[in-house]
């Protein structure tokens, strides 16, 4: 059952220098592996660094430190043309904002075919249209749609166009950066099911970035929880959802609203107190096979004994 490692991230750091005095450490030493064919979710709230992480991997930003290996090729640091093309062909990204992710002045045909055009692989006009047609159909849209402009589509449909744009490149790995956050719950379900279907059909590996845990459970194999530039907990879906150790993970789980009034009314929520924790003094410690937590030996012992004094409170201040 030894799965291949598709993506290996070691100690990735991405800092942004705002001015002489302030540097924002958006991603502050993050390490993880993603295996072939799995859906790996990265969950965090605003400021956690999850979007920056995705963008650093795909080289929209250039990381300050750390190493990223993709399909056994190093893709961090200086890249020559060969490696860049390799990256663009095999790794794709889908974006969050359906209103901003499509060029309003381009027809859907041109938007979806863009990646092929850049690599000069679109072939003749007919071939190009054919490939776009297939891509659109694979996301549940119709070939007629290719001659239309983005503003004629709903948010959910635009997201699907964005997915088609990525899929037409036949990538091995897709980073889905909060692709459902800007959609209604009922449309989120549509897009999520589409991603699940595509992943199965094409044996894709997906890094799914999200800001809350509810949909993540349904779609992921493994989950990493991020907070303030660090991964605080990582493991299988079962580990993270049923046996969460880190107090932040517990607070995230506690915050998810459920469509069940009776249980909601009696539910006891917990809130995270970060002030007493210093992430830089912690490291990733193993809880069980495949399940690790950002802690030190004492904290780990404490938390495993279900003692969360100082770190979780049941009333927000």
């Amino acid at each position, binding site marked *: 059952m030894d799965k291949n490692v598709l993506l290996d991230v070691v100690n990735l750091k991405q800092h942004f220098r705002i001015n002489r005095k302030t540097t924002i450490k958006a991603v502050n030493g993050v390490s993880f592996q993603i295996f072939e064919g799995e859906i790996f979710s990265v969950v965090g709230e605003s400021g956690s660094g999850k979007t920056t992480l995705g963008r650093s991997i795909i080289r929209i930003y250039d990381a300050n430190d750390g190493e990223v290996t993709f399909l056994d090729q190093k893709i961090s640091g200086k890249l020559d043309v060969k490696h*860049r093309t390799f990256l663009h*062909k095999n790794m794709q*990204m889908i974006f969050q904002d359906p209103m901003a992710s499509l060029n309003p*002045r381009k027809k859907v045909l041109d938007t979806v075919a*863009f*990646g092929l055009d850049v*690599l000069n692989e679109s072939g003749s006009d007919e071939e190009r249209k054919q490939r776009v047609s297939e891509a659109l159909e694979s996301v549940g849209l119709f070939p007629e749609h290719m001659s239309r402009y983005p503003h004629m589509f709903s948010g959910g449909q635009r997201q699907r166009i964005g997915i088609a*744009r990525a899929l037409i490149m036949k990538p091995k790995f897709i980073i889905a950066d909060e692709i459902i956050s800007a959609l209604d719950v009922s449309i989120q379900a549509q897009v999520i099911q589409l991603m699940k279907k595509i992943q199965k059909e094409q044996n894709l590996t997906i890094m799914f970035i999200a800001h809350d845990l509810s949909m993540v459970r349904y779609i992921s194999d493994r989950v990493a929880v991020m907070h303030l530039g660090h991964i605080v907990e990582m493991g299988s879906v079962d580990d993270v959802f049923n046996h969460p150790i880190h107090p932040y993970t517990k607070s995230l789980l506690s915050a998810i609203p459920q469509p069940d009034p009776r249980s909601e009314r009696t539910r006891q929520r917990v809130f995270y107190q970060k002030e007493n924790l210093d992430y830089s003094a912690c490291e990733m410690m193993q809880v069980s096979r495949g399940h690790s937590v950002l802690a030190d030996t004492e904290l780990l012992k404490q938390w495993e004994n279900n003692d969360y004094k100082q770190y979780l409170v049941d009333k927000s201040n």
Partner: protein
Amino acid sequence: MSEYTSDQFKRMNIDDLAMEETSMQAPPRFFKDAFTRFKKNKGGLIGLVAIGMILLLAVIGPMLGEHTYNVIVKEHIDLPARIPWFEGFGLFDGSVQGYNPYVNRGLTDVYYWFGTDNLGRDLWARVWMGTRISFFVAIVAVAIDVVIGITYGLVSGYFGGKVDMVMQRVVEVISGIPNLVVVILLMLVLKPGLTSIILALMITGWISMSRVVRSQVLKIKEMEYVLAAKTLGATSFIIIFKEVLPNIVGQIIVMTMFSIPSAIFYESFLAFIGLGLQPPTASLGVLISRGYQAMLTYPHMVLFPVIVLSILMLSFNLVADGLRDAFDPKMKGF
């Protein structure tokens, strides 16, 4: 409630195809949409019509009158306006301040629609020749704006960082030098004339366009469709021209429209203070400059070129205003 048949409550199989709807209407595309909005803007339409008429007169005007623009006729100096049909109503009958030089000099069959200047040249023809120059300057201004201004703004805005910093400092230095100083310096080197004006515009006229373009680029370059293009491997060149530029075309058109009246005025102003074109070339500024000197005795010499210049500038501004509103709709769909 009771007049329903059980047939009506049968289950239906809805064709799957019916489900994937997009907006049924094809909402008009960017330019058509803007064009429709522009048509509703009265000011813009009036301006457009006025520009059209003046353009027409600039082209055929000098050929309509009986006289040419640069022939000096000693006997016809300082003649006020005299237009055939109007003089029957006491307007434009060739009289000024009580006396009528046409009558005094026995010029019964001589008509000058806009009168003559101090050398007896036909002002009607000169005014329209001058307008041709104004249009020419307008075209040059637009060309400079587009070629230099847009490119500069695109590069500076898109690449950011050190490139942007250097380019903006250069712009600041250039804009810090007063335009007149630039023109005077050019005058020292070159002869006064159209070339020096064009050069002056080339040095300074594109700056506001580049600033507007740069600010638009800064806004757009963070949009996700630009990031998407990057992840698909597009080079900066492709991104700038295929992703960014089409989205700022509206702003560019508006800015271009606005830069025309300032260029026209610039030329006229330079002529007025004696730095630009010189007589016998007939630019509106030259005419105004000359006419201004005789304003109290022969108002017609300054009046006609001033009116034409004013209408021309006002019209371009109205059109630019209309375009700006047309490209930037405030009304939303809901």
